[in-house]
């Protein structure tokens, strides 16, 4: 058995950095409606964060702690996007027609709620799922 390499600095930095990255990616996702950001970028940032975890700790550890099937996540994301598109048809709109409105919600005050966010969640999930699927299957490949 090979001795474990001593990556104390990398481990410690990653533990903190990944929290920052994930927080930032969520912020990017929510900012998307009015400021630079959105589902695609938010998803990719999250994906990059997970890849960083993969690089720092080994794949088995991450799989144990983040038991997510990324293929299913990607499929679910695409499904969600298509369904939100179809959802507008239920209300007599065209396919993929999005709606938004302003509501008064406690704590947040006057807030805009848009169906496009749901669509964007689908995009984000599809991006994270696909990116991790590709990267993890390439890295696990034994030549």
């Amino acid at each position, binding site marked *: 058995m090979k001795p474990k390499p001593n990556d104390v600095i990398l481990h410690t930095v990653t533990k903190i950095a990944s929290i920052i990255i994930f927080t930032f990616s969520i912020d990017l996702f929510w900012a998307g409606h009015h400021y630079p950001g959105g589902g695609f970028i938010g998803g990719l940032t999250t994906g990059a964060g997970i*890849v960083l975890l993969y690089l720092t700790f080994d794949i088995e550890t991450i799989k144990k702690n983040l038991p997510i099937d990324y*293929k299913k996540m990607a499929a679910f994301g695409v499904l969600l996007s298509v369904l939100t598109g179809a959802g507008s048809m239920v209300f007599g709109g065209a396919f993929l027609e999005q709606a938004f409105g302003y509501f008064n919600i406690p704590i947040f005050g006057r807030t805009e709620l848009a169906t496009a966010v749901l669509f964007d969640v689908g*995009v984000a999930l599809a991006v994270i799922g696909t990116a991790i699927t590709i*990267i993890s299957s*390439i890295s696990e490949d034994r030549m």
Partner: protein
Amino acid sequence: MSFLHFIILVPFIAAFLVPFIYKKWNVKVHTGWFVFFIPLFIFINLLRKLPKVSNGETIFSSMPWIPMLGINFDIYMDGLALMFALIISGIGSLVVIYSIFYMSKEREALHNFYIYLLMFMGAMLGVVLSDNILVLYAFWELTSVSSFLLIAYWYERKGSRYGALKAMLITVFGGFAMLAGLIMLTMATDTYSLREMIGNVSLIRDSTLFIPAMVLLLLGAFTKSAQFPFSIWLPDAMEAPTPVSAYLHSATMVKAGLYLIARMTPIFSGSAVWFWIVSGIGIITLIYGSVRAVRQTDLKALLAFSTISQLGLIMSLLGVGSAALHFGIANQQEVYAGAIFAALFHLFNHSTFKGALFMVVGIIDHEAGTRDIRRLGGLMSIMPITFSIALIGSFSMAGLPPFNGFLSKEMFFTGMLNASQVNVFGLEFLTIAFPVIAWIASVFTFIYCLVLVMRPFLGSFHPEKLPKEKVHEAPAGMLVPPVILASLVVLIFFFPNVLAKYILNPALVSVIPSMSLDQTAVEIKAWHGWNMELFMTLGVVAAGLLLFLSIRKWNLAFRFYPEKLSLNYLYNAGLEKMEQKSVSMTNRYMTGSIRHYLIYIFVFLSAVLAASIILFDAAAFNFSDDAPISIYDAGILAALVIAALTTLLTNNRITAIVSLGAVGYLVVMLFVILRAPDLALTQMVVETATTALFLLCFYHLPKLGKRLEKIKFKLMNLLVSISVGIVVTILTLTASGHKLFQPITSFFENAYELAGAKNIVNAILVDFRGFDTMLEISVLLIAGIGVFTLIKLESKGSDIDETKTE
């Protein structure tokens, strides 16, 4: 959407429900009992339209599908369409009952079977009821697809797969030809509607596309109806379960070609080419099928060749009857219309007696375990009812009274005798061949009908040759459908004029629009006096009996026929050669080296772009609107160039990866300076992810040593990369140099009002162009799954070679 649309769609809707029904009730209740109500429902509802249509009325209803292109789901029901629809749903109901007893609910994948069957039923109804040619074409191909699935139903058998593929290749080839023909008709008449085309016949007649369109359409019809030389797929299609053979490959689908010919008769007939091709191919098929049928030892193969032969008979009648629409013989119109009438009559009769015969063969196969006539014999006493049905069916097919085949066979002889008088199409000396060939073919038909009755049912019973221990009569449910068909065979003989009045005459008017219902009132009589036709029938019986008794002597003569001249050999050899050639062609450029593929892509890209830029004289440069280049821009650009060159020239892979990353991040900086934060963010994250990916693969990649490629290869790469660079630069400069269109910015500027978003880019992504995004993430998912399957499943599947397991 009208009720008729609903009728076409019912089978498809039912097909969706079948899996659930199967899952819930299978083994307890045979799924077929549920399916049975679908064709029955359709049949009853179509019968209700019968009084209206038999009065000469037609029903039209439209449903917009792609109205912008003039493609609508239009339904047009006239006599011809109704006749076919009744056959489809009527035989369909009987076949489903039959299949309930034929297909074991314990062993068979019934849900698959009934889904395919319902799919076929709906498609076939669509073919005969559609007025729009593109809708017709779509349904036409769907019948080919469902036929493929049904033939390959027992897909673990090699023969099934071979037969299915053969049927698919031949009928789809014909289908494509037909599509081209239909489009040509549209080019001539500027409409997609069959009715309007028939209304504008003169436009088609004067068009230069008349002959090409006709030939292409005929290819479609001939392949579908298994006409010579495309007939080879039908015998192999007999690998399908017998209910399928009875339904698709004798009663309905193979008649789609005849339907098309009948439908197109008002457009094309009257021309000599049409007359000669349709009647000529028909009569060749007739004799080819009947001669081949005599030699078969498998009962189903015998029936397959007999079907080919009978289809040829109907085809030749349609060809001869097309003379009715020629102006030169307007006074004799009714004489030739008689041939069309005979065609429709025989088509209907064939569906009854051949359906019954297929079911009989299915019963023999089911109860005795074999269809080989060399092993069968003496079944008469064991299966008396089956024997009676077989007798009725075969004698009807042979053209004997008192069965419906006799009536239509006599009319067929009349038609062929009239054909010998046709003198308006040239080649008069050939017309005499029609009655002669028709007679010879009928003799062979008589012989194989005798074989069909005598060999399995008479003679001595040899239980030791049969795979099954106890041979007994089929269960009642299996006998009911063929008994119904057999009684129809007899009933039509005694009351032919009822059928003529309600179904055949209205159908005849659809084929020959210039006739009215009163003119078509032909009385069908069994007894015409001692005329030529009767003598021909008597001659057939006499010669047929003689030849049947001496069959062992002359049958040997066929052995000398060389195998290499057979159509099947041609098909197999052609397919094999085609595969070999494609493989060697593909191997020549698919080298497996990514470098080669990249060269193809880049050479193609730069060649196409450069050619179009030169051809349209598109290059235009306009620097007047350009923003001034700041010191930052220049600095970043210089760094970009240095980083790119480092990537190219370094001998260390780590350096290459890092410098490539530097290129990406420098572009990010450029985006920031040019105030495109969304782009910059995306580029940055993508760059990070790619670099991470590179680092993951880094371990597997070979070392970048001294590059030892030949000078020639290096020069080639240099040339390609320089030309791509030049072309793309020119293209980019030209794109900003031209102002051909209104900028679309104004549309997105009010994103906040329309989409409630202050970020235009995001509004475009999720709202304005949401459809693009949806498809993009779908592509992303597909790519991800592709990578996953390529890597994960590669080693498992490679050692299983399907072809070698047989």
